[in-house]
């Protein structure tokens, strides 16, 4: 029905020639834009509502004094549902340490949180379908659990700024009580807030995606970056690490790239590299972590994401 609508606008109202490239591009653009925004609204609302039940204070309590491994798994899962503003990464980190959350477990949380977020989930679901979405979430969890476990095993506590360990608050934080009506209200505000923040990125990205879809020949990239090329994954990840964008900007573009022959594993690895590691986040984390630990963190993430890329290219 939505396809018919996009069809109607393109070929009857704007009157482009059926089967023309421009028509193709416009139809793609209209169809994808409407679909994505509908999904964004519904899914972000539901996720926001779920998130209102997992404030960081509760997450901290759950992870406090958890054993490694179980703790890493829980932390990676809670990273998905716990809402936090990037600016509270520092108090959150200090709070976790104070509560006795092991360093590696804290990292599992910090890794999964930016990588698996509601916008990423919606865009993947809208453009690639539920299978790819499930694979991405699974892979993201794997990277977060594994990355945190390795950091925990390396005993890097000496590279955490000293003042973090000296901090003693001595009391539990209160969790503000919310009625269900409050939760609905917050979910609505959060949905509007996110839409306001990402709509332009998404429209531009779908526009670029539409252009690539219509004008770049199919299989254009297969030769350079297809499954056959063993360097495709590390190259994509190394390009992705310094790049920083939210999921909103990067996904519609990688969708179009995939259509042109980039393989699934390469695309997912690229996306993870872009979303999981970012300069602004590093600058914030520098306040609690010394440079060598940040370096180890980036190194472990890069290697793990490359491995995940190869894995998916091999099995998909």
């Amino acid at each position, binding site marked *: 029905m939505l396809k018919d609508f996009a069809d109607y606008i393109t070929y009857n109202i704007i009157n482009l020639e059926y089967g023309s490239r421009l028509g193709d591009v416009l139809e793609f653009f209209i169809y994808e834009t409407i679909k994505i925004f509908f999904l964004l609204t519904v899914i972000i609302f539901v996720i926001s509502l779920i998130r209102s039940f997992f404030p*960081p204070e509760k997450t901290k309590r759950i992870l406090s004094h958890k054993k490694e491994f179980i703790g890493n798994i829980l932390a990676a899962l809670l990273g998905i549902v716990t*809402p936090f503003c990037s600016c509270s990464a520092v*108090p959150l980190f200090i709070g976790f340490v104070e509560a006795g959350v092991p360093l590696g477990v804290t990292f599992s949380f910090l890794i999964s949180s930016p990588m698996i977020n509601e916008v990423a989930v919606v865009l993947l679901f809208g453009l690639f379908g539920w299978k790819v979405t499930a694979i991405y979430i699974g892979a993201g969890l794997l990277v977060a659990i594994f990355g945190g476990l390795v950091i925990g095993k390396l005993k890097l506590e000496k590279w955490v700024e000293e003042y973090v360990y000296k901090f003693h608050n001595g009391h539990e934080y209160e969790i503000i009580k919310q009625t269900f009506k409050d939760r609905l209200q917050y979910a609505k505000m*959060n949905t509007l807030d996110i839409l306001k923040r990402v709509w332009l990125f998404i429209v531009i990205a779908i526009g670029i995606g539409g252009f690539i879809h219509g004008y770049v020949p199919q299989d254009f990239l297969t030769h350079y970056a297809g499954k056959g090329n063993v360097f495709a994954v590390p190259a994509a990840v190394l390009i992705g690490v310094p790049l920083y964008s939210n999921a909103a900007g990067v996904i519609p573009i990688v969708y179009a790239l995939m259509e042109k022959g980039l393989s699934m594993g390469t695309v997912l690895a690229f996306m993870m590299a872009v979303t999981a590691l970012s300069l602004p986040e590093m600058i914030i984390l520098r306040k609690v972590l010394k440079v060598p630990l940040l370096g180890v963190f980036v190194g472990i993430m890069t290697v793990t994401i490359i491995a995940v890329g190869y894995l998916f290219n091999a099995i998909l």
Partner: protein
Amino acid sequence: MEIKVLGPGCPNCQKMEELTRKAVEQLGINANVEKVKDIVEIMKYTMSTPGLVVNGKLKHSGKPLPNLEKVKELIQQESD
């Protein structure tokens, strides 16, 4: 009335401060709004910023932010 806005200085925290000042103005109450950036001071109340503290009581913390009406309501709860 003593109102504190907790946040290290990110856009969300600035927005929270604006909202709070606007709410105080519209309510026409006599209140001292203070922005708290010191991490140790913030962590006396919460670990998720931005936070809103009215007369020493934590009324909001973290994302998503409340809207103007909600901020007014949170302040008024402590005013009587």
